[in-house]
């Protein structure tokens, strides 16, 4: 077996463990009771949930993201980098067949994603609040994910680095369910509940009411 096959297995096993862990986490939360809301609706839950997952995430929509727009945009580019790195992973058996324009787009997105990822570690260390709030797992998670994006970037430019990319993918995959990276699962729940709760009360994502100016 060559090095690519061995490291490919490491990646697959790591991701499979990660997927299994995520499934168990989803099973856990689905086994919890769901808090029904018996109060009469004041607004549309559907509109608010849609808002929570779309315009509600725009950087200008919340005061917090307007103030901390650098931190917010850093996070956005970091996560776009993560998605692109997974794209690189899926395309990895055919990297050499990819058109060069696609390789350059991928490299640009992952390159910036990696920079913004590592910048997250720096910002945690530099910010007094962030330093107090951050746990060792936060640093490890951001570092590992940033490394994953970095190696996606490097592999696009030098396909010989593919084994390293696979190894880091395997490690990160296995680490997902036991680390803060698992927020990727809970994000969808919390955003849904956010939209549902505030939409039910007519607080967010609603059309103008009859008393509006």
């Amino acid at each position, binding site marked *: 077996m060559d090095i690519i096959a061995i490291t490919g297995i490491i990646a697959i096993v790591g991701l499979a463990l990660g997927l299994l862990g995520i499934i168990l986490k989803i099973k856990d939360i689905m086994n919890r009771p769901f808090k029904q809301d018996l109060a009469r609706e004041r607004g549309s839950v559907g509109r608010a949930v849609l808002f929570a997952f779309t315009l509600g995430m725009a950087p200008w929509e919340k005061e917090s993201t307007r103030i901390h727009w650098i931190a917010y945009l850093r996070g956005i580019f970091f996560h776009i980098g993560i998605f692109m790195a997974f794209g690189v992973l899926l395309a990895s058996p055919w990297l050499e067949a990819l058109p060069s324009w696609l390789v350059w787009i991928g490299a640009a997105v992952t390159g910036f994603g990696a920079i913004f990822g590592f910048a997250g570690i720096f910002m945690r260390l530099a910010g007094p609040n962030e330093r*107090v709030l951050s746990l060792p797992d936060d640093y490890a998670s951001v570092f590992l994910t940033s490394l994953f994006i970095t190696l996606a970037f490097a592999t696009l430019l030098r396909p010989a680095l593919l084994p390293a990319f696979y190894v880091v993918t395997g490690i990160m995959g296995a680490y997902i369910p036991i680390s803060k990276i698992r927020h990727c699962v809970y994000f969808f729940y919390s955003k849904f509940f956010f939209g549902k709760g505030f939409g039910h009360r007519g607080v967010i994502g609603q059309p103008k009411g009859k008393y509006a100016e």
Partner: protein
Amino acid sequence: MFNEKFTDERFNLTDEKAALAIDVLRQRLNRQLEASLEVCVRCGVCADSCHYYVSNPKPEHVPAYRAEQLRKVYRTLFDPVAGAAPGWVGAAELDQEMVEKLIMSAFGSCTMCGRCVINCPMGVDTRHIVRTARAMLTAIDMTPEGLKATVNVHLEEGNNMGVTEEDYVETVEWMEEELQAELGDPSCVIPFNKKNARIVYTFNPREIKYFPYLIQAAAKIFNAAGEDWTLSTESWDATNYGLFSGDDVAARQIASNLEKAVNHLGAETLVMAECGHGYRSQRWEAENWIGHRYPFKVMSFVELQAQYIKEGRLPLDPTRNQKRVTFHDPCNQARNGGIVDEPRYILRNTVMDFVEMEPHGVENYCCGGGGGMLSMTEFAGARKEAGKAKADQIAATGAEIVATSCHNCLDQLDEVKRHYKLKVKIQNLSELVANAIVWPTPPEVEIESPETDEEASQESK
């Protein structure tokens, strides 16, 4: 640094208490709570959304830090790595030190106003986390004394200030007389226990004890609108401090007392006085505590006043309110209840010069008096300090009057005003509305009063 006022023995954690608190956490762990406990990435952008942080920027005032105290306990129970490496994932046992941190963060520096929830990019519901922590502490008898007493008095006396039925009825009757005298209209009444009236109205006991003129204002509005309304003597307190203590059993009992009173009178709508948390409790939480839907509608007096104006039922003259007015949105009505346009609509129709404070509406800062803070004297200093964000907002408007529609806000704003030396008057919305009402000249009526006649005849002699 634990508050030196918590020296009572009941604040000592025993093994039994720790087990009970953990049990409460396990019982209350639903999907919503688990999502909020798991999803935080500790980015810290929630910091500036908290009035405690804005007034005194320190890491302990960051909402994520507060929630993190309960998360540490949660991780010990549910995180797969916590057993092997608790420090790595920030897990901690529920010991004396942790209980003290929970008291300080859940009771001492959070009003559960929800501003951080609206501002969290991940959708973390810190209100829910903090209320869960309060529920755990209340279950082990570690609620701050004032809050505990407020709930207990309500359960024992039927209202949170222990007002007797006699005092309640006498105060209302006195206000009825005052209203009739003010308007020269004896047809203005404040009815008690009127069967099948359309509306049952409630009060905050503070109105009965300290602000009876607000009873008069409400009665003036109802009478001007020609409403079919009544008060109940069975249950009339709009407040429910079970919301703040996290005690769902007490909250359920208090809410169901009011439900029974409305059902006995056969009203179709329960109108909550201008009381932020009372509205939130009865309108949004109570049916979930009780476990069934009410057969009647619940609405805020603010909504009803806006409705009257929209329907042309209140003849208003805004020139009677000439001074510049700004409005403080009570968190439990605006952010946690969706009542944002109504007070503005009311003010546009009742005052000459309305100016918004910034930010306002859903993004308004908490005044610092929410979450039961006014009852917890242990944290009075921090509460006043946290009011700085509001004081700065008010000062920037140049307003002479700050209107609001919540009694806790009213009291806190009054303290903020004195503490930060603001030259403003704090008023309830209904006071401004009542003041703007143009009362029609009553028809000539002969008042038959034997006593008066007798007195008059004696005088003439």
